């Protein structure tokens, strides 16, 4: 489903990704862990073209993204990138809901503007999605009147409305008060049970243990170790992984 090959990415003199390769199969849930600054979020942002890569190749279904994205003036590349993005749902750490739209309008926006669906069709689907994330009663609330956990659940519904083939989560609970983390994780857990393909950057190790098919540990722009959660958490092969796990728990 998603295949990243030898991805390099620098910001100025700082090389953030130093040859990252990863394959995510359809229906697989992969949790990406690692210390801050290790390049996890950057990797995720590269996958849907929010950051153009310097070297390597990303294959998403039939689409291929490469360093050519740096040439942003090309209309053809921009168009292809938009097609890739409609296939991948992206959930941000800071929600990024559209503040001038109600929860319902936020969820309807993609299907109407990008998929050219009718308002009625988009509305029905959006209401069903808000129901799914437990926020049917907040459909007409503006983001300013929602809690962090509610905002993030609307953001997940907004991404799901595009009917993506996979979902990318960039630290979806890091900006939340501790008591609101559970409601967001519950939604992600439901998605895992539905068989959604997901790549989740997270610091919630117990959650990773529970939902992940595979946990990937990243440090200093490289993947150091990966494996099933039971194996990686209980018997890490590398000292660095062990030190990280000890420092987090």
């Amino acid at each position, binding site marked *: 489903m998603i295949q990243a090959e030898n991805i390099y990415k620098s910001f100025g003199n700082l090389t953030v990704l130093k040859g990252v390769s990863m394959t995510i199969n359809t229906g697989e849930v992969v949790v990406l862990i690692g210390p801050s600054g290790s390049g996890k979020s950057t990797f995720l942002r590269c996958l*849907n073209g*929010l950051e153009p890569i310097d070297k390597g190749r990303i294959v998403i279904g039939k689409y291929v993204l490469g360093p050519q994205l740096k040439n*942003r*003036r090309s209309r053809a590349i*921009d168009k292809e990138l*938009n*097609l890739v*993005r*409609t296939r*991948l*749902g*992206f959930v*941000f750490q*800071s929600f*990024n*809901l*559209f*503040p*001038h*739209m109600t929860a319902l309008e936020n969820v309807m*926006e*993609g299907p109407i*503007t*990008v998929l050219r669906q009718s308002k009625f069709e988009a509305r029905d689907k959006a209401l069903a999605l808000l129901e799914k994330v437990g926020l049917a009663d907040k459909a007409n609330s*503006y*983001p*300013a009147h929602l809690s962090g956990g509610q905002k993030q659940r609307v*953001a997940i519904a*907004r*991404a799901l409305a*595009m009917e993506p083939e996979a979902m990318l989560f960039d630290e979806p609970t890091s900006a939340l008060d501790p008591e609101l983390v559970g409601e967001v994780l519950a939604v992600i857990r439901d998605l895992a049970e539905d068989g959604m393909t997901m790549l989740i950057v997270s610091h919630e190790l117990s959650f990773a243990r529970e939902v992940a098919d595979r946990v990937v540990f990243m440090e200093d722009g490289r993947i150091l170790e990966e494996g099933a959660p039971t194996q990686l958490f209980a018997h890490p092969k590398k000292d660095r992984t062990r030190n990280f796990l000890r420092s987090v728990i």
Partner: protein
Amino acid sequence: MDLSFYATYLPILAKGALLTISLTVLSSFFGTILGLIAALARISKSSVLRKISYFYTWAIRGTPLLLQLYFIYYGLPQLGIKLDAFPAAAIGMSVCAGAYISEIIRAGIESIDKGQMEAARSLGMTYLQAMRRIILPQAYRRLIPPMGNEIIALMKDTSLASTLAMVELMRSARHIDSATLRSLEAYAAAGIIYLAMTTVLTVIFSRIEKKLAVYE
């Protein structure tokens, strides 16, 4: 003060005020269009567009409006471009307003969190769709107070068009003054009409601002 004076001369002032209003409406409208284009050019990825836009605001904001009006009305005929007073004034004021409005719009757009553009793009929107649906509607609200100031300033600046032989409100007052030598009455009346018009603008803009505040 002589009240019968007003009965005679108010129609003349009203006619002048009408011209002031049409100049203000036209130059706010075209100034906003020019300003939006210049603002989008200024933040675009094309360095040529950025430079053109920068030059435009630099040249217009760095010279007096009066000079710009003279340049168009008295200067351009030498190049074979001869304009009547009204179009010359309307074009000059639109171009001038556009330069100031472009800076207002640019600041408004840049004040929107960049996560908004990213969220819009991550849904698969094009740059223009994201601008139209997500960024501009949010910037719009923040633009209202400075745009109100700009349009009020514009309305007062139309008095400069009186120098192009345009009989707008200011010039009407001067005509009355020189015909009757009732300076106090003439300018007091014109001043009250200006105040009435700017007050209406202030009220309109604060209404719009309140209406747009619902989601905050």
